[in-house]
Structure formats: structure tokens, C-alpha cells
């Protein structure tokens, strides 16, 4: 390629709402961390009551297989996600970063935008958060911005809608 390799993609400028961390924690508790911990506790109690002899090997096994992964996920994922997630609405394109362990940065030109959806799940509603989904003609082109405050989401949705109308394009 003739392009000089001296450019890089900077992170999007806008951070998401800090409350998203709590939202993700609750979500992680519902699935999968909560059930994992419950199973571990139930097995531990049952074994203590009926098969105390099994504890020496069952205890460490439960700890390694269920308790530690669940706690790690619960503690690490929300903060890590919060560090990664970001978004930006540019002149010509919308840009979002997401993920934690596996990360993703996606850029879709406004000329390709088909619809802008705002989605609020039950847990999100409790925290006053929303997810904006900018759809294009391909599922691999949909830009999802999770964890925005309600007000930000409304504003962003209308701005993208307006911007998409000003940028000419056939959206296919």
C-alpha cells in the first residue's frame, strides 16, 4: 500500500454514563455470576450436611471452578468494560468502542444509516440508562452504544437521525 503507516485510530471521545458500571454488575449477578455462586453455596452446604468427607476435594474444586471465576467476572468485567466503552458522532460517521476481553471498534458512515433505535432493558430502566442501536443494511454494520443516560440517548438518537438525513446516500 502506498499509504504511510503513521496513523492510528484514536479512542472515541465521549465516555458512557458511569452508572453503566453498576448496571453491568447487576447484569453479571443475574447471569452468570449469581447462579454460579448459588450452585457453589448449595453444593458446599449439601456436602457439609451429608458428605463431610467430600469437602477436602470438593471445596477447592468449587472454589476454582465456580466461586473465583464468578467473583472475578463480577469485579473485573464492569470496570474493564467502562474503560473500553466509548462513542463519538463525527461529521460523516458514527464511531463506537465496546467489549472488554475481546474488544471491538466499529465505524459506520452516516450515509449508510437506516434506522436509529433506542432500547431500554428492565435493569437499564432501573438505572435510567439506554442503549442506542444504529442499524445499517448488514448486521455486521450495526453500531451499538450501550450504557448512555436516558437524556444522552434521546439526544444522540435525534442527532444521528438528523445527521443521517443531511449526508447523502442510499443506505445500502
Amino acid at each position: 500500500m502506498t499509504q504511510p503507516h503513521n496513523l492510528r485510530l484514536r479512542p472515541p471521545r465521549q465516555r458512557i454514563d458511569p452508572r453503566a458500571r453498576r448496571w453491568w454488575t447487576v447484569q453479571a449477578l443475574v447471569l452468570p455470576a449469581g447462579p454460579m455462586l448459588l450452585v457453589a453455596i448449595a453444593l458446599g452446604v449439601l456436602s457439609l450436611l451429608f458428605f463431610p468427607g467430600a469437602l477436602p476435594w470438593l471445596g477447592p474444586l468449587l472454589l476454582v471452578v465456580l466461586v473465583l471465576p464468578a467473583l472475578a467476572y463480577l469485579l473485573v468485567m464492569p470496570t474493564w468494560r467502562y474503560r473500553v466503552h466509548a462513542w463519538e458522532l463525527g461529521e460523516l460517521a458514527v464511531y463506537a468502542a465496546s467489549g472488554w476481553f475481546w474488544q471491538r471498534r466499529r465505524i459506520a458512515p452516516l450515509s449508510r444509516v437506516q434506522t436509529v433505535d433506542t432500547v431500554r432493558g428492565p435493569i437499564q430502566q432501573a438505572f435510567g440508562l439506554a442503549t442506542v442501536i444504529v442499524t445499517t443494511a448488514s448486521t455486521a454494520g450495526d453500531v451499538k452504544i450501550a450504557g448512555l443516560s436516558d437524556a444522552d440517548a434521546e439526544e444522540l438518537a435525534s442527532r444521528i437521525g438528523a445527521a443521517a438525513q443531511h449526508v447523502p446516500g442510499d443506505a445500502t
Partner: protein
Amino acid sequence: MTATPLPPQPPVPTAEPAWRRLDPRTLAVHAAWLAAPLASTGLTALATGGRLDTRTWITLGAIASAFAVLTLIGLVRWTRTSYRVTTSVIEVRSGVLTRSSRSIPLHRVRNVDLTANPVHRLFGVTVLRIGTAGTADGRGELSLEALSRAAAGQLRAELLRRAEAATAHEPTLSTLDTRWLRYAPLTFWVFGGVFTVAGAAYRFLDDLGIEPWRIGPVRAAFTAFGASALWITIPLALLAITVLGSIGAVVVYAENWWRYRLEWTDPHTLRVRRGLLTTRSVSIADNQLRGVVLREPLLLRAGGGASVRAVAGGLGDEEENRRRSALLPPAPRAEALRVAAGVLREPEALLDRPRLVAHPRVALRRRVVRGMVFAVLPAVLVLAVLGALFTTVLVHCAWVLLVLSTPVVVWLARDAYRHLGHGLHGRYLLARSGVFSRDTVVLRRDGVLAWTFSSSPTGRRAGVVTLTAAVTAGEPGYRIPDLAEDQSVAFAHAAVPGVLAEFLEPVPPGPTR
């Protein structure tokens, strides 16, 4: 980027090109049959200590006179055979007593095959076969035996340049050649087909309440199988499955691709018609066409074949799309290249050995590691643990497996890495990846809807990302794995200018990462 409807016309040679001869080494090739009797005579001479009896002398004399006669005939034929390529036709004159002269209009030349058997290869010559449109039964074929490799390559280039220029006018891109059926056994259906049919039969019997294991003959067969010498019966069973599967694959191929025809019904509509019992006809408007994929799965690639799929919107969901986007069944690679180029209305060189940018060296390491961690080590570990618990035979199996499979993994990884690449070519972007199923994707740059840069923790440490181009087609996105970070940005930025521009920043000087 503006579209160029036709490749630039090659310079037209002078009006009366000279007649050219076949390669003189052809005579030597024709004399190659002498090797067998001479070798046997030589062995006799060795066995008898160098003394040859009268019979041997007579044999030698017969061989010598046959050689003289045949060489003379060959020499005459060689002097009387010549060919030339004019602006519009290729002409071949041949024949000793009855002179014949054939000419084939260049715009009818569809493919040019170069084949060389081991004797040809020994003498550095090759047979050139010219296939034409419309005739699948061999009548339209013309072959020149034999040319030097350089002359054959040059002639092929001359013929195909014209053929390419003609493609744009010729509405029919390809029709089924029954010889393509030989590629059928190189598909999934060989083994998958047998097991699918067996599974279906079992399910059917099961539904009827019959347990196949209880049927007398079946049980008897299994008992006999178990009692027999396994080192004979297992290869035999595998052979039987392969033969059955190959027959099944040919049947499936024929059912899917009989009367196959790919053509432009009008300048803007591409149509595929095919099928024996179920006939299918799929039309694709060229404004829905985003590109093509040249597919070369491992087995098919080993057999020199490839198939072609369209990247197009409006063909239904992913499942539908998989069935409807096929443009060419498994066929010779040259045919696949020709069809792909014809569909895109680009010169064939676009896909044949495209100039691709290599990915960073670390991608090779990642492939080796992936193969070892996900394929080899689990099996080795399981064997080793079982071996430690039960029998030392399995421990030996474990290390033998490790020693044998490591070079295979490295070889596959190297093959994958060597063919990993991406590039820009006019209005198209190209990407190639995969080892078990190697796909070369050609996408229209203006068809890219969005770019995704994804990275895993190990990828971030190695400084590579996977770039995905989203397009409106059955397959939602096309992945370009393991690009260097700056490479991915530069590529996406160059392929679709403008989209990324506002989110870029120069890399700060100093140590990166």
C-alpha cells in the same frame, strides 16, 4: 475511482505473424517408450555379465530400426506441424500425407490448459490444450504437443488476452463441462454424504421401531468385522466408504449442477441456471453485486479446483444466500478465475496471483500456536494422562502423535500465512485467508457499509487486529484476520476514503505500545 468497462486492448501484432514450430524435444518425448525395452536389455546384459546372445542382438536391432522409423516419422511430422496466432484466430497446420489446417477464432477461446506428464516434465515441455466455448465434448478442443514451457506460457498469455477482451461481449460466461464431475469427490460429500445417508437410514428405521443392530445380517456383518484381521478390514471399510461417498458426491454434484449455465441475460443481469431434478435459476442484478468469493477448500485446492460465489444483496437470508449465491461449482481453477473475472468484468489477472500485502510475521506464530493449543495439545494431553493412569502404550502414542502432528501444524500454518493477504485493486478490495477453506474475497469498495476493528487479548499483545468489512449480502461481514494495527487503519482508510478520517491521529513518536 471510476469504472473501466474494458481492459486496455493489447498491442496488435503485425498483420502476418510468422508460423511457429513445436518444440524439437517432442521427438525425444516420443522416443521415451524406448526406455523400457532398453532397460530390460540392459538388465539382461548385466545379469549375463555383458555377453549378449543372438536373441538379444535381434531385439536390439528391432528396437533400433523401430526407433529410426518412428523418429523419421516424428521428424517429418514435426517439420509439417506449425501454428500461428493472428489478430483474430489461432491456426494450426498439421498432417504428413493429408494436410489439415484448423483455425479457432480467438474470441471463442475459453480456456487454455497446460498439462505435462512426467516424461514431458523430464524434457521441459508441456502440452497445450485450447478449449472453446459451447463444446463440452472435446470437439472444440485443439491441442499442441508439445511446446517448451516458455513458449506454452507465452502462447497461453496471447490467447487469453484476446479471450479476456472478448468476454465482455460474450453473454455466456460458463456452461457445465462433464469432466468437472471429477472434482465432486473432493468436496465434503465424500465422507459427510455417507454418514448423512447412514444417519438418515438409521433414523428412518428407528422411527419404524426397528433397531438395525438386531437385524440378523447386520449383526452377523459386525461380528465378522470384529473377528477379522483389522489391519485388512479397516482399510477395506475406509475404501468402501470412500468409493460410496465418491459416487454419492458425483450424484449430488450432477443433481445440483446439471445443465449449469452462467450468463448475462442483459447487460445488467447475471443469471445462473442449473439442476437435474430440481432446476434452479437465480438472477442477480449487477447493482446488487458487491463482489465475488473464490473458494479453494484444502481438498479441492489439492486437485487444482476452485468454486466461485457471488457477494450480492437480495438473495435472502444467510441460509438462502448460501444456496443461491453459487456462481460456479467446483471446477478447474482456471475456469473459476475466468468466471470470477467475467462476473466482475475485470481482467483475469485480478484474482490469479493477486498482488497482496502480507500480514505481519506474528500472524504466522499465532497460527502455529493456535494449531498446537487447540488441535494437538488436547489430544496429546488426554493420551498422556490416560497412558499414565492405565497403560504405557498410550504414553508412546502421545509422544508419537506430538512428533508427527507438529510438522503438519507448522506446514498448515505456513501455508495459511503465505496466502494471508489483502490489497486494493481499482474499485475492489481483496482479502485472502484460511487454510482448510481458503477464500479470496473481492469486494467492491463502495459496497462497504461499516468497518469493525476487533482484537483479542493475545492479539493486542501481538499488535494485530481483525478488520471486518460489513456489506449488504447473505454473509454479513468479511473478515481480514491478523493485520498490524497501523496496517488495518491504513487499509480501511485507503479502501473507503473519508469514513475514518475524522477519527485518526498520528502515531506519537517514540516506542510504540
